């Protein structure tokens, strides 16, 4: 898988989930890598689909060639199957069928009396370590840390925690890194002058001898595992995590090497961090949004809200003009009509109209047998002759085509009479 990823990054082929290994070989545009890939695929197919073992020398050769492909692109850890050289095929019995799993590592450590657990909290929320706080194992290749978590972890080590750091040092927190170099194959742990444990690994990255701390294990002339102090705590660094994989630990000698290396921190319990431990859960919604990449959007939203608030506030403080007085439309209408009549010198028409209206209204109310003028006069308490003369004048105004000149006075009298009649109704 690592080789395929390396070739994908190089542009020699394109990884897709529907592609078979044979299709990758045919599609590989890197002619030099194609030959290695073809043989690699053949071995992988033998193991995966044929349930067959592999020949140790062949695996070692292929592993070296595959490592060259991977190293040429990125310094990544290798496909575990290829990371084992010199292995005894009879012992190649991976319990769950997953060579990259860690089930055998767990069993080995349990047999040594070391319990493997999980950190009680995400790495970014670890509490201050005490004397009984177990070491935490972090495979930095599998557990990416965010910035806050990294800072907190460094602080935790400084305050007395023990960190078992696994994988390429360029992935570790900067403060904890040793220097690096390319190492050899044989991992040696010198426990004492007499007891030297040896295991085997594929060439991988190891630490330079210039690294700070005590060299716990070496590969060739280079350090493979280093123990150093940092503040009140300590860091046990391993160059790769291959020893902890099922297939890595199954190689004769490797289990003893691993136990010896880890034994330098005297663990009763080792808390193994998983992928989700590398990210501190956000303490408030704003941090969560910011981590989700919505920080800028959040600021925009806040700015927009502030602008909207200001706009509403400014609008609210503006004086509201008084509402215009309610007017009776009819009164206006009458006034307008009157003004029209006056301007058009049609006062006599107005007299005739008002007289007609007065007569009709009075006639509607007066008894049938009674004269309108008499009734109206009785009603409003006026002289009947006077009322009769006024109504007669209005009647004459209907027939006249020219105003006489007293229309305004007549209109006032008629209006007064009308109002009096209405008042008495």
């Amino acid at each position, binding site marked *: 898988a690592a080789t395929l990823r390396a070739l994908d990054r190089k542009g020699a082929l394109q990884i897709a*989930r529907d592609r*078979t290994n044979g*299709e990758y070989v045919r599609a590989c545009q890197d002619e030099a890598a194609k030959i290695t890939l073809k043989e690699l695929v053949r071995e992988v*197919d*033998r193991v995966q*689909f044929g349930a067959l073992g592999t020949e140790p020398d062949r695996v070692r050769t292929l592993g070296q060639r595959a490592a060259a492909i991977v190293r040429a692109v990125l310094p990544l850890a290798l496909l575990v*199957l290829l990371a084992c050289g010199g292995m005894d095929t009879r012992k190649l019995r991976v319990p769950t069928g997953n060579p990259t799993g860690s089930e055998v590592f767990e069993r080995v450590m349990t047999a040594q009396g070391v319990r493997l657990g999980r950190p009680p909290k995400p790495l970014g929320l670890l509490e201050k370590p005490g004397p009984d706080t177990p070491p935490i194992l972090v495979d930095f290749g599998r557990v990416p840390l965010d910035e806050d978590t990294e800072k907190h972890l460094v602080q935790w080590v400084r305050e007395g925690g023990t960190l078992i750091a696994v994988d390429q040092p360029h992935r570790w927190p900067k403060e904890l890194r040793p220097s690096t170099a390319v190492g050899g194959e044989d991992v040696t742990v010198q426990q004492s002058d007499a007891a030297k444990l040896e295991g085997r690994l594929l060439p991988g990255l190891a630490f330079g001898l210039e690294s700070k701390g005590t060299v716990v294990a070496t590969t060739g002339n280079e350090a493979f595992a280093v123990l150093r102090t940092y503040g009140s705590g300590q860091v046990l660094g391993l160059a790769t995590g291959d020893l902890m994989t099922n297939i890595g630990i199954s190689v004769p000698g490797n289990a003893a090497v691993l136990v010896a290396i880890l034994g330098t921190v005297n663990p009763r319990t080792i808390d193994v961090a998983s992928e989700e431990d590398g990210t501190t859960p956000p303490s408030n919604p704003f941090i969560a949004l910011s981590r989700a990449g919505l920080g800028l959007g959040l600021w925009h939203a806040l700015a927009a809200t502030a602008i909207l608030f200001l706009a509403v506030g400014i609008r609210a403080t503006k004086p509201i003009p008084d509402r215009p007085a309610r007017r009776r439309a009819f009164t206006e209408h009458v006034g307008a009509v009157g003004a029209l009549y006056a301007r058009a010198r049609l006062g006599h028409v107005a007299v005739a109209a008002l007289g007609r209206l007065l007569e009709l209204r009075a006639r509607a109310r007066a008894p049938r047998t009674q004269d309108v003028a008499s009734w109206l006069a009785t009603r409003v308490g006026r002289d009947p002759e006077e009322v009769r003369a006024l109504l007669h004048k209005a009647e004459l105004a209907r027939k006249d085509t020219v105003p006489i000149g007293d229309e305004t006075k007549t209109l006032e009298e008629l209006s007064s009479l009308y109002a009096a009649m209405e008042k008495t109704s």
Partner: protein
Amino acid sequence: MNESQFEATFDRLRKEIARVIVGQEDLVTGLLVGLFARGHVLLEGAPGLGKTLVARSLASVSGCSFKRIQFTPDLMPSDVTGSSIYDKERAAFTFIPGPVFGQILLSDEINRAPAKTQSSLLEAMQERQVTVDGTARALPLPFMVIATQNPVESQGTYPLPEAQLDRFLFKLTVPDPPRDVEIGIVKNHAAGFDPTHLDLNASTNPDEILAMQQFAQGVRVDDQIVAYVVDLVRRTREDRAIELGASPRASIAMMKAAQVVAASQGRNFVTPDDVKPTAKPVMRHRVMLHPDAQLQGLTPDDRIDEMLKAVPVPRL
């Protein structure tokens, strides 16, 4: 028989047929896979593309007996299976075997015969025997039916029913040859090639073929491969463009074909690379497209291609 011997014989057969059949590598490989998977093959292609020639070539190089039936609308079942004829001299009925008693049977234009005659092949293809007058008669082994049909003509044809189509392991399409291949074919004829007298050497014999069939049956199929095959076939039942998906018989057929492909590459285990090339030949005649999909111009091969992209390949 081991995988190296299988590979060597398979390769030898392929090369021998290639002396006569130019530029039809997929077709030849498909026929050989069908033979060693104990399956039958349906060839579909326009007239004049060498379908009959390839069947005869296969029979020649395999050392098997070859019979040919030209299906016509008036063909009767007894014309296929044979019938009992009264022998006056012996005063008894004598069974005269029909052409189905050949080891390689070419059923030319099978869709020209009515369903009654087509169904006479059903028992032969499935049981490797025919029943005539109540008596079951075993067919010679190995037995393989290579049927052909013309995709162009629809007048006067009887489309094969699904039950019979399902009996064919593969449906292989015979495409028009590319220009350079056609030039090669014409040159061969110009040089005196006579398709009626094939100068082919028998590269194997029926006993060896039976042994190879037996070996292919024992090629290891990992659980992941079985799951992959089943997932591919099940997709045909879930695809919205397909009205009738492939049955579990398609899964079995794909697995058997993949076993032969693996053995032909010198392996005794199947990988996804062996399964993928068999997907279309196995499934294209077993699925029925929705009428809407047909109107849009979709073909079963198009849908199978999509399924191959959608189903993840088992990987370490």
